[in-house]
């Protein structure tokens, strides 16, 4: 703590000579991202969220890659085999047509996360582009783009997604991703525009302009990094929303269709086995809840971590 009080000059004559040397700040300069990482690691729930998310993503990548097409393989001799932790290949047992539930769950998680992350990338790219254009140029462009944002915001969003997916390609993951992205980019655009409006007049931007930097350079190298924090937070929280929307679509029968696996269509199937194997509705549901919880913990943690006004303890 002592060496952080740089400005304080010892008042007693005796201490002066020795203390002046002692009080030189020897702690290394910490960049914004180092500080952000420290703040993040101090946020207990955020770390929990990160661990859950990392585990889920790893499982969703590794298990289906190792097992290939086994997630759709039926073997009637194994039908209705109960869950058993002793069986490392099928800890959740087999369903009524002998499909390995654990493998299917991993594959479904992969599909859902893929859709979620892809939809969020569309949201981020479109949102940043529109928001940056509107916020940087202002005036008529801003007016035009923001009226368009208002238009999209006035659409009954979930129903529009259902409509697009139903009319343009039921069962096509790409259509689901595009539909979620097309409807969802407005929040990100508004955030970026707000940041850009205030950054446009900031001293460092004026300085860059005075030095002769072009619009493209100012936007990409100077303003964008400074405006990124709220977008990162919104994107993290957006993953949860997108995954749930995909699951809902698939549950309603518009999204990913069997034999492809998705957390939503696993739940549709599970309804048929309400009486015989009720746990079938628990596995995909709990996985969904975990994804949403992990994403929202991560988002909350990032919000605090990326806020430079938050103090780093210790």
């Amino acid at each position, binding site marked *: 703590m002592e060496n952080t009080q740089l400005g304080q000059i010892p008042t007693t004559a005796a201490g002066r000579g020795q203390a002046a040397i002692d009080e030189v700040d020897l702690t290394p300069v910490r960049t914004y991202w180092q500080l952000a990482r420290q703040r993040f690691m101090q946020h207990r729930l955020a770390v929990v969220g990160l661990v859950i998310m990392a585990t889920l993503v790893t499982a969703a990548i590794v298990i289906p890659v190792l097992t290939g097409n086994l997630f759709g393989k039926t073997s009637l001799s194994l039908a209705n085999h109960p869950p058993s932790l002793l069986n490392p290949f099928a800890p959740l047992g087999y369903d009524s047509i002998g499909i390995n539930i654990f493998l299917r769950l991993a594959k479904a998680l992969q599909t859902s996360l893929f859709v979620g992350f892809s939809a969020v990338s569309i949201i981020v790219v479109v949102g940043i582009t529109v928001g940056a254009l509107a916020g940087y140029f202002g005036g008529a462009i801003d007016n035009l783009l923001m009226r368009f944002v208002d*238009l999209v915001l006035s659409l009954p969003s979930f129903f529009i997604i259902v409509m697009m997916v139903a*009319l343009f390609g039921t069962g096509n993951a790409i259509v689901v991703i595009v539909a979620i992205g097309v409807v969802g980019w407005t929040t990100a655009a508004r955030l970026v525009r707000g940041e850009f409006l205030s950054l446009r007049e900031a001293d460092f931007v004026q300085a860059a302009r005075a030095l002769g930097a072009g619009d493209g350079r100012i936007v990409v190298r100077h303003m964008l990094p400074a405006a990124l924090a709220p977008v990162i937070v919104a994107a993290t929280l957006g993953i949860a929303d997108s995954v749930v929307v995909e699951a809902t679509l698939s549950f309603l029968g518009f999204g990913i269709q069997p034999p492809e696996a998705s957390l939503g269509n696993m739940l549709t199937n599970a309804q048929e086995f309400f009486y015989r194997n009720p746990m079938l509705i628990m596995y995909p549901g709990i996985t969904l809840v975990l994804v949403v919880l992990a994403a929202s913990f991560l988002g909350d943690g990032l919000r605090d971590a990326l806020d430079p006004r938050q103090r780093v303890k210790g």
Partner: protein
Amino acid sequence: MASYVFRRIIQSIPLLFGIAIVCFFLVSLAPGSPIDRFRTARTSPETIRNLIHLYGLDQPLLPIEFGSWLAFGLTLVGAVVVAGVGIVIVGRSVSGRRRRAVGLGLIALVVLGAVGVVALNWAAWGGEVTWPGRFIAWITNFLQPWQVDGNGNLFAWGYSFADGQPVIEKIVERVPNTLILMGTSLALTVVIAIPIGILGAVRQYSLLDKLITVLATIGYAMPTFWLGLVLKFVFAIKLDLFPLFGMHAYGDTSITDLLYHMALPVLTLTIVSVAGWSRYMRSSMLEVLHQDYVRTAKAKGLPRSRVIYKHALRNALIPIVTLLGLTIPSLLIGAAVTEFVFAWPGLGGMGVTAVIERDYPLVLAFVMTGGAMVILGNLIADVLYAFVDPRIKY
């Protein structure tokens, strides 16, 4: 205030028109057709032609018939891109006050350009004028919902492709069912979530607060349809307390039967929204409790309950009132998924079915109603906000 509301209503007209254009062309240009489900090996081409004619799908979309929609679309997109690049280049070189004028001029230029493209296409492809085209016919009728056909039916929003019933009547029939469900859930949510939120804020970081926070977080993370499934499993199958789905037992229209059928869907909706609202209430209350005037009230020795309920709560409720306005659209269309899970005969479920059946008039009417509700909800939220918070002036 009146002039503000008037201005907002005027502003919402182009917005609704935009929604109408987007949705109409989204539906009309989608691959596939509503008569696809009648196509079997045995349907004669003539029957198909008659059906297409019956549904009015042989009419052109716009008054002008184009030789090629693709060519038209590509030229239009090209024109917009060129105009956009133009705006960016010119907008940069003009500075200060004149920028706005130039911007408006350029928008006018884009509109003129689009009209020009239409005219050029028309000339190039030798189309013929066929008045009025599906879009204009649809929207002019849509704006006059009071029109009545020969049998006294309100036909202006079209007849449903699925059963020939007028769309307006189909929608009006379902409104009470959805309102009952959503209204009950909303009332319960307000009654439960506000005290929970206050409790959490007043006893911040206590064991109770932590418990509430954990439960609210989990409740908020649960997808509605899955929660519905779980509740159905627990209460309808395991405990056999409530029916699996539906609104009435066959032939039974008593209130008790309605309540019996309502219990599970209302519970599902209420759990999810209580989770959200109580978190909102808690943070709003916390913010107010840290204000100076609350400290003053405490310092001058007012009883704790008076400080909390009289000074703090009234101000903490301001954002909640806004939230109330924003939930208005969901009162009518928001519960689609819950209605689907419990086979509740409401509007949301009907909307989803209409999309599956490609019942275009119903889908369009549904989206337009939804859009109008969203705009209305935002307006009501803003008006309410000004109403409860004297600091806000429009």
